[in-house]
Each structure stands twice: as structure tokens, then as C-alpha cells.
């Protein structure tokens, strides 16, 4: 207490004492006592002197004596003046005090004043008037004041003002209908009366009887008014003790009842490696309690907390909340939103401000509140936790702190407090905090428990004050053994008794009320001293022994399970709203991280700029004329491949860390039972938008520099699809692995095969024979998005550019016709001739098995090929020889596989028939070839040669043309598995499917088949990429990858040691 205040108080006391007859001995003694509690003897003397002076102690009498001669009128006048002066002084003193003391302190002062007056029972009206003035200036409500006065002055409870704020601790209950509360004390002389001063939450008590009552170990004098502080306990000689918490809960039991019953029945927990973490856990609590959990290191405190909260699954036993099994997934929806968990590490979003962190959390919890209400609540909680002044500061991360460690912890707590869950689990909230901050935090938790919440707190090295705030303490020893469960101060007594220590009945210090929890652990963990006087590692009493003692001494009062749904304070918004909130939060967080935004947005255009400028070279038109011509830029196919790889790379790296970063926050939000789908959707949405921006900037810059014209949208769509695919792939990995480093190491593993199996670097025809086959892209390659993207872009660029699109159809017919006439036909003819020769040979020298096999095979080939030919449709808009067309059409409709007979029946005549068929096919194709050529020339004729040349130079690319037409492949046709496979001009023919679901085709096909229809390659490929993306989304949602990895981790290699 400061000097000024002390002076003010002294004056106050003095003035009051002065009234109506002046200071009495008893009053003065009271004052001296009061000073002695806080000050040293020298100062005490000083202040007593001061008091005397102000109270005119000793002076008043002489004054009275000397001035009695003046006559009564004068005296009365003087007295009146003095009274007025005093009143004024009182007012100014009180105002001064108002500015310094807290309300609780003021109430205590008031009590002190009343006590002082009560010391002599000199309750004169004047004094009371002044005291009432003091009370008014102190802002103590009238009703409360009256109650206080009544409490102090009256000797018996029956005479007291009846009020809810009175509690009687007696063997006889108050009369029926009384508002006062009652606790049965067992046999007791007189009563212990409690008064609650509501405004400040203080409890005052006095004892009216004659028994030997002890408050916190100190004997209580009759009619002495004492402050009943947290952690205090009344001990009566014959009755039960009364604890502070019991008192409080009795006072509160009518105000806010929360119906929670929390029962833990024989819970045991085993670690994954089989060791026992917790044993024989039995708990039973109801709402409105603050329970502490303490233990030696390695005792299992956090494990216990996690098991109780539902984060870990016990190996046996149950945790029942209102009768619902916490760990049963079937019943868990009853307990949704009931539990809150504050972890030790902070789970904050670094890039957002303190306010924003709390605001978005609140939005996810309270769907029905308006913006204003939400804001009010948030500000309220922040103010309560002393965070209002740093509301708009960014949280920052542990390495780059913007707010202090204590503030971070408080914010963590705020995140849970705001929704006031009915059951709260807190893991070491005070570690790392200053003692003032620690007290604040525990105060808050205490307040919450008073409101009816059930709170479990793992606490480490609490101060005495904090220790006493807990209603119950749960102590554990190493190995998960419970060793105590009961009143905190009692713990000291219990353990002292157990080891037969001196003073074991004193839980707390007599003078100062200080409890030393360290004592408890010193006793529990006391070690044996060896013959040299050194401490050994052996414990005097092992955990098992403490546990046995505990089992013997304690019986659990099991509370019945409350048969109603536990109260929920949570109203989570709809899935769509959740998704919106997640998105908003995430976007804000990303935007405020300047580095992140800069890199991610600039990366793409920079790469595009770099690459495009480097590969743009000028073509030599003449000896001194150089010009950039798109047509002659040989780097374009490679450019396309690199674009795809860059899109994949960017997509992966952006998403790889996303879920890992959010992991902590997900842990916290686990208890909110938010929708996984909403969370994932919001992530995916943000990543897709980012991909879109990156790819569009990339495409625009790259294509503009390289003069890729009129195809920006097409390029963008493919690159965007690929990037999205990579995004979802990255999310999968991010959700399956725990550290970002692992993920980044995996990235090459995912990207390099994309390059290898894209078809751009290594031709699909020239891969390991076990995977490659002629005429179809290997199935292995179909799993890699790059293959689809590359093909799509190459085919599209070739086929749909403004130049080639004029000619494509004609060129296709021409190419097909040429192939059939120049390559297919000669091969067939060769086979036929061979067959005839073999048949002739066999006729001469008899049947030979080996020859028969060859004959059969060749016939099968011819049969298959002709059958496939019938699947062709005659070309529509060409003018060719009528007869040739007729015969071809007839062939299409009339040919049956049986027309090509089995080897046994094969004859010269048969050969002739087949030859006729082949000839008519050839004739048809020759016609088509010429007609297509003409058709093509007609189209070209419509253009001026110069503009045509310009068109070609701007839009077509020669190097790419060589690629998609396979110009450099010398082998134009190949026999494989009884079929003739076309190797030349892949972009000009379509593969025939083997069955309706057969989508497989050769690389660079212009169209793909599926389910009976033919789709343009570009469209088909893009759809495939999106299909893969969707599949990956499902594996993400179901966490398939993570489960797979866990499963593989469970496979044991070698013998397991048990």
C-alpha cells in the first residue's frame, strides 16, 4: 500500500473515530493491529501518531474541557462546523482513494471501518452517516451496503437481512422460504455466517459460536469478521470441513447450472509400443469445477489430458460424458462441440492479426451472431485477456515475434474461451508466463469454472495463490499411477502424514497462508541416501506403493450420469459458409505475407520471360536478312514440354506445404467438428485461383514473345489443368507426411517421371519392350499428366492453327489413302503371295505343322485387317470414279471374316479371291488420294500465294510438323501380333478400339475413342487430366495416402521383441 493511501486511510479512520465522543481504546487498538499486519514497527509508530493527530486523540478531550466555558451554543456551532469540515474532508479523501484502490480493496476498507467501529460497538448515527457517505463515494450499491452493515452489526443470523448473498453454515437450516443458503455443518455451536459481496466476488465470514473453529489452521475468534479467500478451509471439531470451492459452488449452483457429468471408469492407456501410459484412472466430476493435474515428469499428465479430451484412445475403460462414451464414434456426435482443448504449443495463424485470429475462429463457432455481436464478443474476450491493445498487431511466428510469448499464450486461450466449451482441457497454460500473467490466466479459468464449466488443467510449478485456486488436484507419479485426488491444500497434509512428518496437520503457512506444492513432490520423489550421505537413484517410496496407498485411502464418490444431452455452445455454420470463412481467412493470411505473394505471382512471368527470350532466335532468310519466323522456330515442341513441366512444378511447390502449415490449427479445430470437405474445398479453391493467375501470366508472356498466335486460351486451359492436378497431388502429399522437408524431397520423384514419360523426350516406341508396344501409348505413361498435356497441345497446335485447319481434313484423307495404297497394300500382297507359295509347297511335299502355323497366322492377319477395313466409312465429299466407289461400298457391307478361310481350306482360288478384294481396296484409295490432293489444291487456290505464305509462317511450325507426322521414322509400317501397325503420320489417322471402354491409342492421334464415340484429342486429354484431379481429390478427402503409409509402417520386418 502506498504512503498516500495509507495516509488517506488513516485520516478516514481518524475522522470517523473522532465523531461522537472520539477515539476509544479498543478502536485505537484495532487501528494499531491493522497497521502491524503490513508495516514494520517504526512505520507503525509513525502512522499511529498520525492517526492520533487526525483523530485529535487526547486533544479533543482537552479541547472539550477548555472550551466548556464558552457555552453550549458556541460548542454546538463549533461542532457543526467541524462536522461539515469533516464531511468535506471525508469526501475528498474518498475520491482520492477511489482513484487508487480497486473495488475489492475498497470493500475491504469499508469492512475495516465497520470492524473498527464494531470493536467497541459504538454505532452512533453520525459515524454511520459518514460511513454511509464513504460507501456511496466508493460506489457500493445501497442494498449491498445495507447488507454489509447488517452483517457486521448483528450478532445472530436470524436478525440479519435475509438475502441470497448470505450462507449459513450450521447444524440447523434457516426457516422455510428463506433466501439465505445453507450448508449442513454437523454439530456446531452457533453459526458460521458467510456474506458474498457480489460486485467484487469476495466472501466474508464470521463465527457466532463458542466452539474451537479453525480457519486455515488459525483459530477463529467469535464475531470476528474475516475474509474467506480462495483456498481457505474451515475446520470444525465435530463436523465436516468447509472448502472455499464448496462455498462458491453452493452460491453459484442456482445461477448458472450446467448439466455435465464426467465419469472416467477404470481407464487404462497403452502406448503404441505396448508400454502402459496410464493405469486405473477413475474420475468423477460435475460442472463448475477447476481441476488441476500435476505430476512428476514422465508421469503421464499430457497423456491423461489427451485421453480425457478424446485425442487418444484408451486401451480399456471408458470416459463418459453425460453417459455418452467419448471414444465411441457412434456416440461422439452427442458430444460435438462440448469439449475444448488448449494445447501447449501455440496454434495461431502467423500472418493474421490478433483480432483476426480470434474473429475467424469465432465466425466458425457462432453462425447466428451478427457482425456487430461477433465483433463485440471478440473485443470482449481480448479485453478480458489484456490483449485489446495489441489487437491489430500481426501474430508473427516463434522466430519472428511481433507479440510476446505471454501474449501468444493468452491468445491461444482466448481462442478456446470465446466459445466457452462446457468441458475444457488446458495443457500448461502458465509455462513461460510471468507470475502476473499466470495469475491472470488462472483467474480467467477460475471465472469460467464459476460459470459452470468443468476445466482440467495440467499445471507445472504453480505459485501458492494459483495452487489454492483449484477445486481439486489430481496428482500422478511416474508411470501413470494416480497418487492423489482431492483438495489441493489437503494434498500437503496427506503426504506429510504419509511420511510421518512434523506439522502434518498444517497444509499452509499459518501466517501468510502460503502453500508450497514443491513440498509434495519432494516427498513423493524423495530418494534414498546411501552410506556416504549421497542421494542415490532409488526412491524411498515407489510409484506403485503410492498408488496402493491411494487405492486404500480414497474412495471415489461416483456421481450419477446425467441423462441429458450435454450443453453445447457451438453453432457451426453450414458447410458452404465454413468454406467461405476458410477461404477468406486463408486469403487474408496469404496476402499479408508479402514475400509469399511476390514470389508466387512473379515466378511464372519471370520464367516465361527467361525461357521465351532465350529460345527465340532469328531465321536466316538471306545472307544479310534475319527475321524471327514462328514456322522456323525449332524450339517450339520443347517449349511446350517445358511449359508443362513448369506448370507441374509450380503447382506442386505451391501446395506441398499447405496442409502441413495448417496442421497445428487443424489440431485445435478438431474439437469444433468442422467439415473436412469445406476445409479442403477452400484450400483447393485458393490453389486453383493461384494456378490460374500463374498460368495465365506465363502463357501471355511466353506466347507473345514466341509469337504463338491465337491459341492463348487453349494453352492456358491445358497448363491450368496440369497445374491444378499438381495442386491436388501436392495437397495429398502434404496431408500424408508430417514434415515439409520430406515433401520437398519427394517432389523430384514426382516430377522427373513426368518428363520421362511425357513422350516428348523419349519416344514411346523406343522404350523397354516390356512396357512399349507399337501403335499404343504404354499404359505406364497414361498415369502421368504430362503425357496427356503434351499430346493435347501438340495436336492442337498442329491441327487447329488457322493455316492447317484449312487443310487438315484433305491432308488426312490424302495421308490415309497414301498409306493404304503405298504401304498397307504391298504388305498384304506380300503375305498373300507368301501364302500361295506355302500352299503350293505343301501341296507338293505334304502338310507340315510348322508351315501350317505360319499359314494360319498370316491368314488371321489378313482376316483381321480386312475386318478392320470394313469399319471404315467411305469419304463423304469427294468426287471419284463411281464404279470404284460402288465396289468399295459393297465390300464394306458384304465382307465377312469367313471369307478368309482357315488354313486347311486355303487354295489357289481362295488366294485369287482375296487378291481381288485387295485390288479393289487399292483402287479406291488411289482415287481418294488424287481427289484429296485436288481438294487441297482447290482450298489453297483461294488464297493469294503471298498471304498464304504469311499465314503459314505465322501459324504453322515445321519442326512440330515433323514430330507429329513422324517424318523421320524410316519404318512406315510394322507387323505386331497379327496386325499391321501404321507408324507414319500418326496425327492423320485414328486408332481403332478393341472394345467400348478401350480409350488407348497411339501418340498424337487427332481423335480418341471412348464408349463408342470419338472425341477430339484436345478435349479428351484435358478431361482425362481433370479426371485424375478429381480422383486425387477423393484420395485427399479419404486420406488414402496417409493410411497407406501407416499400413506399410506396421509391416514388421524380422522378429519383434516383446
Amino acid at each position: 500500500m502506498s504512503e498516500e493511501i495509507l495516509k488517506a486511510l488513516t485520516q478516514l479512520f481518524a475522522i470517523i473515530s473522532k465523531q461522537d465522543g472520539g477515539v476509544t481504546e479498543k478502536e485505537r487498538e484495532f487501528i494499531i493491529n491493522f497497521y502491524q499486519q503490513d508495516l514494520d514497527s517504526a512505520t507503525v509508530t509513525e502512522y499511529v501518531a498520525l492517526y492520533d493527530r487526525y483523530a485529535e486523540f487526547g486533544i479533543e478531550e482537552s479541547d472539550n474541557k477548555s472550551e466548556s466555558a464558552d457555552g453550549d451554543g458556541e460548542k454546538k456551532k463549533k461542532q457543526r462546523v467541524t462536522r461539515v469540515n469533516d464531511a468535506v474532508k471525508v469526501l475528498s479523501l474518498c475520491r482520492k482513494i477511489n482513484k487508487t484502490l480497486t473495488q475489492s480493496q475498497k470493500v475491504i476498507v469499508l469492512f475495516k471501518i465497520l470492524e473498527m467501529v464494531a470493536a467497541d460497538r459504538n454505532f452512533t448515527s453520525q459515524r454511520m452517516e459518514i460511513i454511509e457517505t464513504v460507501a456511496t463515494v466508493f460506489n457500493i450499491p445501497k442494498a449491498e451496503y445495507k447488507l454489509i452493515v447488517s452483517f457486521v452489526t448483528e450478532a445472530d443470523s436470524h436478525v440479519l437481512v435475509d438475502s441470497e448473498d448470505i450462507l449459513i453454515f450450521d447444524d440447523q437450516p434457516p426457516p422455510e422460504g428463506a433466501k439465505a443458503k445453507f450448508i449442513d455443518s454437523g454439530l456446531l455451536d452457533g453459526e458460521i455466517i458467510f456474506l458474498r459481496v457480489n460486485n467484487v466476488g469476495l466472501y466474508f465470514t464470521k463465527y457466532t459460536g463458542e466452539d474451537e473453529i479453525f480457519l486455515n489452521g488459525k483459530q477463529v475468534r467469535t464475531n470476528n469478521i474475516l475474509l474467506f479467500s480462495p483456498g481457505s478451509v474451515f475446520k470444525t471439531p465435530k463436523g465436516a470441513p468447509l472448502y472455499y470451492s464448496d462455498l462458491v459452488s453452493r452460491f453459484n449452483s442456482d445461477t448458472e447450472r450446467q448439466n455435465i457429468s464426467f465419469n472416467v471408469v477404470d481407464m487404462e492407456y497403452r502406448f503404441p509400443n505396448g508400454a502402459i501410459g496410464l493405469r486405473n484412472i477413475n474420475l468423477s466430476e460435475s460442472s463448475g469445477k477447476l481441476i488441476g493435474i500435476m505430476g512428476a515428469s514422465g508421469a503421464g499428465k499430457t497423456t491423461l489430458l489427451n485421453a480425457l479430451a478424446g485425442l487418444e484412445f484408451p486401451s480399456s475403460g471408458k470416459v463418459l460424458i453425460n453417459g455418452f462414451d467419448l471414444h465411441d464414434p457412434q456416440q461422439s456426435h452427442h458430444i460435438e462441440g462440448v469439449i475444448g482443448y488448449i494445447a501447449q504449443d501455440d496454434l495461431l495463424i502467423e500472418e493474421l492479426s490478433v483480432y483476426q485470429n480470434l474473429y475467424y475462429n469465432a465466425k466458425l463457432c457462432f453462425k447466428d451472431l451478427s457482425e456487430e455481436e461477433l465483433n463485440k464478443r471478440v473485443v470482449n474476450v481480448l479485453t478480458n485477456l489484456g490483449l485489446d491493445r495489441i489487437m491489430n498487431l500481426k501474430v508473427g511466428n516463434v522466430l519472428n515475434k511481433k507479440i510476446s510469448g505471454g501474449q501468444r499464450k493468452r491468445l491461444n486461450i482466448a481462442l478456446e474461451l470465446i466459445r466457452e466449451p462446457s468441458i475444457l482441457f488446458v495443457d500448461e497454460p502458465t509455462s513461460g508466463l510471468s507470475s502476473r500473467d499466470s495469475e491472470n490466466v488462472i483467474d480467467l479459468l477460475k471465472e469460467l469454472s464459476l460459470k459452470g464449466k468443468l476445466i482440467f488443467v495440467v499445471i507445472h510449478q504453480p505459485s501458492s495463490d494459483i495452487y489454492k485456486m483449484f477445486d481439486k488436484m489430481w496428482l500422478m507419479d511416474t508411470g501413470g499411477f494416480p497418487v492423489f485426488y482431492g483438495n489441493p491444500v489437503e494434498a500437503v497434509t496427506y503426504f506429510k502424514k504419509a511420511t510421518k512428518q512434523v506439522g502434518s496437520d498444517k497444509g499452509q503457512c499459518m501466517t501468510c497462508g502460503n502453500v508450497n506444492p514443491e513440498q509434495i513432490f519432494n516427498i513423493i520423489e524423495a530418494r534414498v541416501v546411501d552410506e556416504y550421505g549421497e542421494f542415490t537413484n532409488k526412491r524411498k517410496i515407489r510409484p506403485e506403493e503410492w498408488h496402493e496407498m491411494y487405492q486404500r485411502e480414497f474412495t471415489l464418490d461416483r456421481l450419477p450420469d446425467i441423462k441429458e444431452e450435454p450443453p453445447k455452445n457451438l453453432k457451426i455454420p453450414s458447410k458452404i459458409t465454413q468454406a467461405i470463412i476458410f477461404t477468406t481467412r486463408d486469403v487474408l493470411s496469404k496476402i499479408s505475407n508479402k514475400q509469399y505473394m511476390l514470389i508466387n505471382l512473379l515466378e511464372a512471368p519471370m520464367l516465361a520471360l527467361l525461357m521465351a527470350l532465350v529460345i527465340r532466335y532469328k531465321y536466316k532468310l538471306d545472307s544479310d536478312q534475319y527475321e524471327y519466323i514462328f514456322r522456323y522456330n525449332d524450339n517450339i515442341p520443347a517449349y511446350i514440354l517445358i511449359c508443362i513441366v513448369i506448370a507441374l512444378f509450380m503447382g506442386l511447390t505451391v501446395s506441398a506445404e499447405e496442409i502441413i502449415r495448417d496442421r497445428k490449427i487443424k489440431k485445435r479445430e478438431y474439437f469444433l467438428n468442422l467439415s473436412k470437405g469445406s476445409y479442403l474445398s477452400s484450400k483447393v479453391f485458393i490453389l486453383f485461383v493461384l494456378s490460374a493467375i500463374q498460368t495465365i501470366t506465363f502463357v501471355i508472356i511466353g506466347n507473345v514473345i514466341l509469337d504463338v498466335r491465337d491459341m492463348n486460351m487453349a494453352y492456358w486451359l491445358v497448363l491450368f489443368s496440369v497445374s491444378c492436378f499438381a495442386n491436388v497431388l501436392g495437397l495429398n502429399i502434404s496431408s500424408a507426411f508430417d514434415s515439409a522437408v520430406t515433401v520437398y524431397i519427394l517432389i523430384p520423384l514426382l516430377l522427373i517421371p513426368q518428363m520421362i514419360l511425357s513422350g516428348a523426350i523419349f519416344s514411346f516406341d523406343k522404350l523397354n519392350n516390356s512396357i512399349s508396344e507399337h501403335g499404343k501409348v504404354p499404359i505406364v505413361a497414361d498415369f502421368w499428366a504430362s503425357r496427356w498435356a503434351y499430346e493435347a497441345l501438340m495436336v492442337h497446335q498442329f491441327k487447329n492453327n488457322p493455316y492447317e485447319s484449312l487443310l487438315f481434313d484433305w491432308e488426312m484423307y490424302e495421308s490415309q489413302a497414301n498409306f493404304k495404297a503405298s504401304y498397307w497394300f504391298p504388305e498384304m500382297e506380300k503375305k498373300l503371295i507368301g501364302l500361295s507359295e506355302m500352299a503350293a509347297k505343301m501341296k507338293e511335299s505334304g502338310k507340315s505343322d510348322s508351315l501350317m502355323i505360319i499359314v494360319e497366322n498370316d491368314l488371321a492377319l489378313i482376316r483381321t485387317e480386312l475386318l478392320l477395313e470394313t469399319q471404315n466409312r467411305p469419304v463423304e465429299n469427294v468426287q471419284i470414279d463411281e464404279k470404284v466407289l460402288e465396289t468399295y461400298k459393297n465390300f464394306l457391307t458384304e465382307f465377312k471374316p469367313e471369307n478368309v478361310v482357315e488354313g486347311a481350306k486355303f487354295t489357289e482360288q481362295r488366294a485369287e479371291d482375296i487378291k481381288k478384294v485387295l485390288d479393289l481396296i487399292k483402287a479406291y484409295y488411289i482415287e481418294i488420294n488424287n481427289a484429296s490432293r485436288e481438294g487441297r489444291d482447290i482450298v489453297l487456290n483461294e488464297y493469294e500465294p503471298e498471304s498464304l505464305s504469311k499465314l503459314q509462317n505465322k501459324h504453322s511450325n515445321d519442326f512440330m510438323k515433323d514430330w507429329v507426322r513422324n517424318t523421320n521414322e524410316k519404318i512406315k509400317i510394322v507387323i505386331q501380333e497379327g496386325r499391321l501397325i501404321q507408324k507414319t503420320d500418326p496425327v492423320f489417322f485414328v486408332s481403332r478400339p478393341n472394345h467400348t471402354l478401350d480409350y488407348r491409342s497411339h501418340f498424337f492421334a487427332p481423335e480418341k475413342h471412348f464408349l463408342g464415340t470419338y472425341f477430339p484429342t484436345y478435349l479428351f486429354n484435358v478431361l482425362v487430366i481433370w479426371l485424375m484431379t478429381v480422383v486425387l481429390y477423393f484420395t485427399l478427402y479419404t486420406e488414402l495416402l496417409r493410411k497407406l503409409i501407416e499400413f506399410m509402417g506396421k509391416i514388421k520386418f524380422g522378429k519383434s521383441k516383446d
Partner: protein
Amino acid sequence: MKKLYLVLALLLIQANAFTKETPKSHKMVMAYLYSDDLINILQSIPSPIEISALIKETGATYDRAHLSDPKFSKNYTMSHKKALNLGVYGTDLGYVNLYENNQDVINYLDAVKELAGGLNVGQYFDYDLLKKMVASRNNLGELLRITQKNFEKMNTELQGRKQEDVSVLILAGGWLEAMHITTTIYEKTKNPKLREKIGEQKITLQQLLLALAELKDKPNMGALYQDFDQLRLVYGKVNLITTDGKPVISEDSNGEIVINRDNMSKVELTDATLASIGSLVKGIRSKVIK
């Protein structure tokens, strides 16, 4: 090393082209062009290789400026242009091959390959042929034999595809280019042998026109035919006097008896005619290679 494509197999001349008197050679005038007789027509057209050899003999220095720029090969999109210029480049290729300028050989090779591919006859310019060509660079007879055989094969194929027009155009282009080179060089050197050669082309032109006549109704062919016809008119002023020599009896490869007569020919043409031939050829050629 790139392949050497020798399109000039098309235009080949046997040393005694004009003197071969086979009964068919007269019939061919009436013959329907699109038939097996085409070979004979085509055979009667002199090979630019011979002309190139002649030019070299005259001592004219190598000058690439006379030739068509191989880069233009990329500009020909219409099939008739492709065919014509295939012939042109073929001639050029023969020329540079004889002068053994290897870098230019490669360039013209590319041009030829490009156009041949576009006409789907790329397979007739394979590596084997190339090797043979280079090996027999200095043996004219062998060179001619190789190129003729190849041309026959290709022609058969084109006939099989009913694409004889391609053959004709290739021939026409090759001949045109040969004419152009010859006339240009003659202007410089005034070599009498070249002059004679130019005059002799009157007959070749007639054969060509016969072949071209069948095409003139096709799109783009009309103008070309007209141009060649113009040339024929100019050639009207050229006189060819042939005197029959003694007949020689021999057997050809098929065992048939062939009577040959060594004919002597003499060419009469004025300088003015020559000049106008030269300029007309230039004109037609520039249209062709545009």
C-alpha cells in the same frame, strides 16, 4: 551426311535419243497419254545431267546464281508447284553434284527431299541411291543409268497411283531449269555446242507439249500450257535438219531386234531467236519458281 536425292533420274537422255527408231516412237504421238507408253515419251526427253556435263565441259565456272534458291522449297504448298519445282531442284542438284560443291549438294538435297516427301515419293530418294550417285560422279554413263532406272521405278509407282500428271510436271520443271541454265550460260560464253543443244530442244518441247496438253484443263495448268505453247511458237523459227545415217542392227535387252540409224542433225537458229528463247524461258521459269 545427308542423302543425295537425284530427281534428275527423270530427265535422262540416251546418247542417241533422237536416233532411236522404234516403231512405237511414232505411235506415241497418238497414244493416250496415260498409258504405258509414257515411259517412252519421257525417255525421249534429254536429261539435264547431260546438259550439265556439257556445260562443265565448256569450261564454264560454277555459278550458283543461275540456280533456284533451295530455301523457296518451303514455300510451295500446291501440288503442281511442288512437282514442277521438284524437277527444277533436281536439275540444280545434278548441276551442283557435277561440280562437286558439297555444301550446296546438301542444301538442294533438302529441297528435293522436302518436295518429294510432300508428293509421297520420298522413298525414291534413299541412301543407297545417294551413295551410288556420289560414287559415279565422274562417270557420266553410269550416272545416267542409275538415274534412269530410279526414274522408271518412281514413274511406275506414280502411274499405279494414277498420278502421271506428277511425273509430267516433274519432267517439265526439270527441263525448264536445264533450259534456263543453258541459255544463261550461253549468253556469257557463246559456246557453239550449247547453242546446238538449245536448238535441239525443239523436239523435246514438242513431246512435252503433248504430255502437258492432257493436263491443261486441270486447275492451274492452263496458264502453264499456254506458256509452253508460246515457247513452241518461238521455236517455230528454229530449223532442225536431220540427215539419215546408216542403219545399224542390234539386239536390245529384251532380245528384240532394233534397227538404229545414226542420224546427223544440224541446227539453224538466229541470235535473235536465241535471245527470245532465253528471255521466254526466264519468264516461264520465274513464274514457276515464285
